[in-house]
């Protein structure tokens, strides 16, 4: 009997499925944070595999900034319908109307930061004790030290210096009342792993990821969609370009890449040849060297 070896994608898949099942076993009210981006889509398909043929035993939560691409919302509704999961939408628009948060002013205004409050309010309202997210450790420096099971105190805060050690594949999800966990099953995946897995599993994606003609404008060397959610400065001219999204956030923080990639293989080739990281196009990370760490501490995704 010879020895057997898994491919790296199968081993990553196996690890993520193990973690998703551990969440279902250890927590009473988990939820999957679904953004409509490729990482949370992969997460949704992993969850389906983990519990098949039973239904995914937790709802999906979408924090909607009100500035989402229409394509994202269409894809979201189709997916939850197909998978038979419950969708809960937390609305940043409502948080603004209720006075929970104040809208940022100016041309670089984004509801990215405001999402944190809506997210924490939603977690509290539905008494979720575990929020599963698609963050990866290769995305950003502060995420390189994030745990699979990441503890949040009763205020939803992350303390990077006092994280629980995580050894072997033993995960400790024990917590006091009011505390919750963020769970990151695809922590060990890279951007390339995610794309290769989408190819291997033939996972459908929102059309935004493929090339399309769109009205865009340029700001700080990044192209953004020319849509009402993002006010333009007088000098910012609208032009038609062939673009696609490399990551999908809401309209105000999603940079568009000039691209003609129309298939998964073309996208993979493009990423393999790329010389900037995927978050290089994310306006929200450019604010300071420790921007992500600061946002994560107060409860960001």
């Amino acid at each position, binding site marked *: *009997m010879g020895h057997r070896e898994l491919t790296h994608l199968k081993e990553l898949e196996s*690890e993520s499925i193990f973690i998703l099942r551990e969440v279902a076993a250890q927590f009473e009210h988990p939820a999957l944070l679904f953004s409509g981006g490729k990482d949370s889509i992969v997460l949704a398909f992993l969850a389906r595999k983990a519990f098949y*043929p039973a239904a995914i035993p937790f709802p999906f939560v979408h924090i909607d900034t009100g500035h989402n691409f229409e394509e994202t919302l269409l894809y979201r509704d189709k997916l939850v319908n197909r998978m038979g999961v419950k969708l809960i939408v937390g609305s940043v628009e409502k948080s603004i109307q209720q006075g929970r948060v104040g809208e940022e002013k100016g041309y670089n205004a984004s509801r990215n930061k405001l999402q944190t409050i809506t997210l924490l309010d939603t977690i509290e309202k539905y008494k979720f004790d575990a929020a599963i997210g698609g963050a990866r450790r290769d995305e950003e420096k502060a995420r390189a030290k994030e745990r699979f099971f990441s503890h949040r105190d009763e205020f939803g805060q992350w303390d990077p210096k006092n994280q629980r*050690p995580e050894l072997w594949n*033993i995960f400790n999800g024990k917590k006091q009342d009011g505390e919750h966990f963020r769970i990151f099953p695809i922590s060990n995946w890279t951007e390339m792993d995610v794309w290769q897995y989408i190819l291997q599993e033939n996972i459908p994606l929102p059309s935004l990821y493929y090339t399309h003609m769109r009205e865009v404008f340029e700001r700080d060397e990044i192209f953004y969609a020319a849509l009402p959610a993002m006010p333009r400065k007088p000098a910012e001219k609208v032009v038609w370009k062939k673009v696609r999204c490399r990551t999908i956030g809401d309209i105000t923080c999603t940079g568009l890449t000039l691209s003609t990639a129309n298939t998964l*293989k073309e996208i993979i080739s493009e990423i393999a*040849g790329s010389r900037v990281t995927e978050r290089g196009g994310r306006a929200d990370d450019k604010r300071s060297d420790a921007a992500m760490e600061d946002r994560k501490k107060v409860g960001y995704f």
Partner: protein
Amino acid sequence: MLQQINTSAIKPILSSLLLKEEDNGPSGYLDMELLRFSTAGSVDDGKSTLIGRLLYDSKSIFEDQLQSVKDASERLGGEEVNLALLTDGLRAEREQGITIDVAYRYFATPKRKFIIADTPGHIQYTRNMVTGASTADVAIVLIDARNGIVEQTKRHSYIASLLQIPNVILAINKMDLVNFSEEVYNTIKLEYEKIAVILKLGNIIFIPISARDGDNVVDVSANTPWYKGETLLQLLETIPVHNTDSLLPARFPVQYVINPNNAAFQDYRAYAGRVSGGLFRVGDTILALPSNRLSTIKAIDEGPVELNEAFTPQSVSIRLDGNISINRGDLLVKVNEKYPKYSSIISLHVCWLNARPLSVGGKYIVRHTTNETPAIIQDIRYKVNINTLKNIADDKTIHMNDIAHITIKTQKALKYDDYSENRITGSLILIDENTFETVGAGMIVSDQEVYSYNI
């Protein structure tokens, strides 16, 4: 050297790989293997520089990352681009210039995808080293060629031995500062081989390197013509991994019961989990523990796909013949193979992770595979001084970062293997009853195998 970096020349290595893939069909990249390795070291021995070098030379660093490191280097007043800044993530670390937690890094070559657990090497971070080493297939122990083997080397090697990391690479760094002397290299090698025997280390490989200038990291160095071995990256690409996992006695800790209760799958009932040793096949006779019931594997499912067999570390669901009751925490094993041990008195090496010390009589929650049970500390036999590797028998208080040999009594008996035989069924964690923090990492030993080090 580094200030001459030409960013336009940097292209991820995957692009060359993908061109190849177009020629040979799409299988190339999808067939890569995964290797997890750990590095331990302190600021001075060039560990962060080595990792930065691996990422940089394997073209895994993107322009915007390099630019932000260049900017940061300038801000901090350095003239050269400091590759170490690529890996020191948290704000406190960048400000203090130290690595205080385990950070995970990723890079890939056409052969393998690598996960680096980058850990701080100082004694006060022993717990971080243990954490990072717990999942590693390879440990890289760094030595400063000018200093040779020091306490820290013994400490890192002890941890590699304690955690049973199958391969240890002794990277003798800063060879440029000893004129690439073969004699220096050989002296260190000879001395280390003695330690390796005492620590019962697995496979050991020695490489003379200069992380700062890249000698023998990715490319063969012209400065060490006397060294005939592989470069560090060549080694990482070829060293065998997991080659014995599927040959171990079969173990399947039941994680979750899948019971769909819908019209299409009314009688479906499967036990989900991750194979944690050996191999299971459809038709195998299994024994369910602790109920001691026999059954036969009817099917092995991976999502909607039925498999003929499942091996370590696959996540699958197993369907059994007959109507036997199995729950999370139970263990499936195969008949005609070595059975696990079954006891509530467990002897183990523990690495203490918490500021509140461990003492005899203390009560904790034990988590072992998918099981959980209360436990009490019965005895502290000895503490290990991991700098001298000597045992201390008369100090019964175990502080953070200490490693000790203890005995615990669990309320529910555990089904386990010795850690030396199976890293999954032989490991456990201790959880504080009140704070629920993870306070101890335990590696189960059988009493006969307890050995004393004398160096």
